[in-house]
């Protein structure tokens, strides 16, 4: 297809002028006359019987228009959908408990909505919340994972009779036999906790039912506008064409905005239809900690069997996973853990068993990385311990176990989250490791810098770890490319966008095919009126799936342009070239602009040949057979104050492989953001619950997101192993940066502390490191 001047170039982002000058429209920027404002009354108890809700005083307050409880919803009250049914794994147990729009009879986590007040202002709505009298009889609370499975544990969903949400075993080969042949087996327990997505924009919904046109417009901070449109139409008894869902600019998604449906998402449109007025709800930061999904704890008992050279013979991992109060997202998070644990390594025998557990806490759904962190942590730590026990260098043990390029595609013989077999499409792990080791100065650090610092009383440590990320899963996305009479190109796609740079990367892909400037491709995304088919932005799939659809549609339009131009210029298509917005006969001055061709393709007079379509427009869809596997190596050098245990990052190196780079600046930005997220998870963030299921740090004062002073400069390099599964050769990158950071911290801090402690948990903190060191000293 000739040169691709735009794909691969770090062009400036098309969306930045709007974003940087404050003109970009977010949900709360949409102001409609007569808008009412909603506020939710949420449970203060983690578990209880909801005896009564008295809203009479709230309804009498001046400025209050309506108050609704579960009783008022009638038939509209029902359990939400099971969003992601589990893959067909033999012997799988799966117990479904999906959430409800407003609690009825029972509350199962703090923050579960009980009633909604609609008023002339948010102030009045919040005043009225204090008027509502709720009678809840507290029930014993399920907080801990092991406790939840004890025979005498209270049961959250009585109909299920158990707190087991799922029990899954996946295996390949024969681990026990491999264990019998092993030279060394390392066994450890691990705990890995995570936290909130922490998007700068919380959730928000504005619904506007137009009774005259019988049309519902919903602005929603969702990562999946089309499925939201489809679901709302079904639930509200409307045609899909009567419902328009717009996900405008979003201040970050990171997974939780892919949840469907949140109670607020179901209720606000319903209320707008009843009251025939626009209704807005903007989640505040405090309620976000309870009402928006997050990711949390897994407890692993794992072992690694190796031969005397450190080659992996097998891995066994048995773990518990916190599902929270409901499991609408199926087993997506723990199955990601199960699959990602294998990493870039050759693992001939694998036994993995997990139990997902209901607890009286906020629902767990994917957050950037989506369970992959937990798996990578377990595997990388086991390799570190095995290396230590065998006296093998930690880089060397990884190199010995990397899959080699001739082993691709590599079938791990288990199922991935998308129900497809876990088959790695391509990868080349050794060069990435060598590059990272070289960039961080691995040998020089160990041989010179670290001993020198130690002699001066300074504690420096290095970490270097590998990971893979399954990205770009199906089912499909679509794109429509149209050349307008102005010569500019309109590109519409169905995926939502939350800051990934889609307005630029999709434009780059199309611009290359149509010979136009990137800024001449106007991207519309996240508006169901503009594009009606698709799923959403999740699982690091935007560029892979929607990007490929853009590519395919652009190819069709290119063909049509050449066909119309061939006629107009009276030249063979092979003699034409497309560049700078015109079609030119090669080696001549004869040319015609895309705008003129667009007019010719849509004539006002004359006959159009039978079967021909008007315009320079095409819609294409792309559905990959399965996901494509990205990978990388992170390395860092830390210094730890031996007295206060304060940690500072001296260097941070990333070598990443997401196949072909569409825009290296945007890819680096994704990695920077991911690493920042990972640093938060590893060393700052933690959702601290007490034994009554109360979250003790539901504000950014005590829930510590990393800030600019906590995130170091990153040195980023790339290896490009194209994916054979899509025409662009791309792999996803949205989550990658966040995935290995916990494992990296653990290794680097252990190294800095000269083996005084063994780190088997995340998150860490100076205080926690102090306690670990104290415990280790007490033991020795």
């Amino acid at each position, binding site marked *: 297809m000739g040169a691709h001047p735009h794909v691969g170039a770090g062009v400036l982002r098309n969306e930045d002028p709007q974003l940087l000058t404050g003109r970009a429209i977010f949900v709360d920027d949409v102001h409609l006359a007569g808008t009412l404002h909603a506020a939710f009354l949420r449970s203060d108890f983690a578990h209880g019987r909801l005896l009564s809700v008295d809203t009479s005083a709230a309804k009498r307050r001046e400025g209050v228009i309506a108050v609704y409880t579960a009783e008022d919803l009638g038939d509209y009250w029902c359990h939400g959908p099971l969003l992601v049914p589990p893959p067909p794994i033999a012997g799988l147990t799966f117990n479904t408990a999906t959430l409800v729009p407003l609690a009825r009879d029972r509350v199962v986590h703090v923050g579960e909505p009980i009633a909604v007040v609609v008023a002339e202002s948010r102030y009045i709505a919040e005043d009225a919340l204090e008027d509502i009298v709720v009678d809840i009889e507290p029930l014993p609370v399920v907080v801990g994972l092991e406790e939840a499975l004890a025979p005498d544990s209270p049961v959250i969903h009585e109909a299920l009779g158990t707190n087991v949400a799922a029990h899954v075993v996946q295996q390949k080969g024969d681990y026990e036999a491999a264990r019998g042949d092993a030279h060394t087996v390392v066994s450890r327990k691990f705990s890995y906790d995570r936290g909130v997505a922490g998007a700068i924009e919380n959730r928000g919904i504005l619904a506007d039912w137009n009774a005259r046109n019988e049309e519902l417009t919903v602005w929603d901070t969702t990562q999946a506008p089309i499925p939201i449109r489809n679901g709302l139409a079904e639930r509200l008894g409307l045609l899909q064409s009567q419902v328009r869902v717009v996900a405008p600019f979003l201040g970050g998604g990171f997974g939780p905005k892919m949840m469907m449906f949140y109670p607020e998402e179901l209720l606000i449109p319903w209320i707008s239809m009843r009251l025939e007025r626009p209704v807005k709800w903007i989640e505040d930061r405090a309620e976000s900690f309870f009402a928006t999904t997050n990711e949390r704890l897994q407890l692993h008992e794992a072992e690694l069997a190796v031969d005397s050279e450190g080659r992996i013979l097998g891995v066994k991992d048995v773990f518990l996973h916190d599902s929270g109060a409901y499991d609408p997202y199926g087993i997506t998070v723990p199955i990601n853990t199960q699959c990602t644990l294998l990493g870039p390594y050759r693992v001939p025998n694998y036994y993995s068993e997990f139990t997902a557990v209901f607890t009286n806490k906020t629902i767990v759904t994917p957050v950037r990385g989506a369970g992959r962190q937990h798996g990578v942590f377990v595997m990388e730590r086991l390799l570190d311990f095995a290396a230590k026990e065998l006296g093998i260098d930690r880089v060397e043990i990884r190199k010995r176990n990397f899959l080699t390029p001739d082993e691709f595609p590599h079938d791990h013989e288990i199922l991935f989250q998308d129900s497809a077999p876990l088959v790695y499409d391509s990868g080349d792990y050794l060069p990435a490791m060598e590059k990272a080791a070289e960039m961080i100065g691995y040998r020089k650090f160990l041989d010179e810098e670290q001993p020198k610092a130690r002699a001066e009383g300074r504690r420096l440590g290095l970490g270097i770890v590998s990971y893979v990320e399954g990205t770009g899963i199906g089912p499909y996305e679509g794109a429509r490319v149209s050349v307008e009479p102005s010569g500019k190109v309109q590109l519409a796609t169905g995926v939502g966008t939350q800051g990934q740079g889609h307005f630029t990367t999709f434009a780059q892909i199309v611009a290359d095919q149509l010979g136009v400037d990137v800024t001449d491709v106007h991207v519309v995304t996240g508006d169901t009126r503009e594009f009606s088919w698709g799923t959403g932005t999740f699982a690091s799939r935007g560029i892979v799936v929607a990007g490929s659809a853009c590519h395919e549609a652009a190819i069709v339009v290119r063909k049509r342009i050449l066909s119309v131009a061939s006629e107009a210029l009276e030249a063979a298509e092979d003699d034409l070239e497309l560049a700078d917005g015109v079609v030119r006969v090669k080696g001549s001055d004869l040319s015609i602009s895309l705008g003129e061709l667009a007019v010719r393709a849509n004539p006002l007079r004359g006959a159009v040949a039978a079967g021909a379509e008007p315009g320079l427009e095409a819609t294409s869809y792309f559905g990959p057979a399965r996901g494509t596997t990205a990978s990388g190596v992170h390395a860092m050098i830390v210094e730890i104050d031996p007295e206060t245990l304060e940690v500072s990052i001296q260097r941070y190196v990333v070598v990443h492989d997401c196949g072909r780079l569409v825009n290296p600046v945007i890819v680096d930005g994704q990695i920077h953001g991911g690493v920042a997220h990972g640093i938060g998870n590893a060393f700052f963030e933690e959702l601290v619950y007490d034994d009554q299921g109360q979250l003790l740090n539901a504000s950014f004062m005590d829930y510590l997101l990393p*800030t600019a002073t906590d995130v170091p400069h990153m040195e980023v390099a790339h290896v490009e192993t194209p994916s054979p599964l899509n025409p662009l050769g791309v792999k996803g990158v949205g989550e990658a940066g966040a995935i290995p950071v916990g494992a990296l911290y653990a290794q680097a801090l252990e190294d800095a502390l000269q083996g005084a402690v063994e780190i088997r948990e995340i998150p860490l903190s100076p205080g926690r490191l102090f306690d670990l060191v104290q415990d280790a000293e007490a033991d020795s």
Partner: protein
Amino acid sequence: MKPAPFEYRRPETVEEVIHLLAEYGDEAKLLAGGQSLIPTMNFRLAQPAMLIDLNTVEGLDGLDAGDDGSLRMGAMVRQAMAEKSALVAERVPLLAETLPYVAHAQIRNRGTIGGNLAHADPRSELPAVMLALAASVTVRGPDGERSIGARDFFAGFFETALEEGELLTEVVLPPAVEGGGQAFLEVSRRLGDYAMVGVAASVVCDGAGRCDQASIALLSVGSRPMLAERASACLVGERPSRATVVAAGHAAGNQDIDPPADMHASVAYRRRLATVLVRRALTTAFERAGCVIGEGAS
């Protein structure tokens, strides 16, 4: 995250403020920089019926040198203003050194010196500085004006010696002393967070190089900022040395304080931090006082 309804007044004189305080009693709250009060109101943890805005009150934002070398700061002096003041840097270097640790630049632009002290958050830096420097505050109420020393002012968890109807109007920082040196240190999770432990140390050495005075104020170690008396006792009358500052650190961390545990720091970790920070702050303070810390015992 919207406050409950409240009434709002913008008086222009201290007399009006005192009058309003008398009228509304404990239903009223004074609004200075609002950096603690407004979030608390938005969480509806505080629901004052009357908010009295001090931002329009005249005469509360002076920053003046006293003839005796002291520094007088009006209660409404913004933290950022004090931070950038050459006069503060010259007269009270410990305050200038500490202010960058107070929250974040945006917060210091609004936050006031007086508001911070009257809020009496035991995790706050400025109260510890006031203690270390033996500063005093001036308050005015229906019965007139009085001065309260920092030791007496911070009474407990978010509690001060302010009586009902009184208003903090001014902070008075005593003049620097010959042979004096100070230092501030803290350990927080992130820059700008409340410290897990912080220390403001002020020492004075006599002409013979012996420690004459040592005030070591700790924050985030209890219900109010506190002076580490046993730590001071390790120093006063002694020639400062590695051994004395180490002993002072241990006395501070293990004897003077009875710190709380929270999600960021255990009791043992707080003791460790106090021990280390006191030793380090004293070492710097003595250096600044012109006393070289000897390695051996004094």
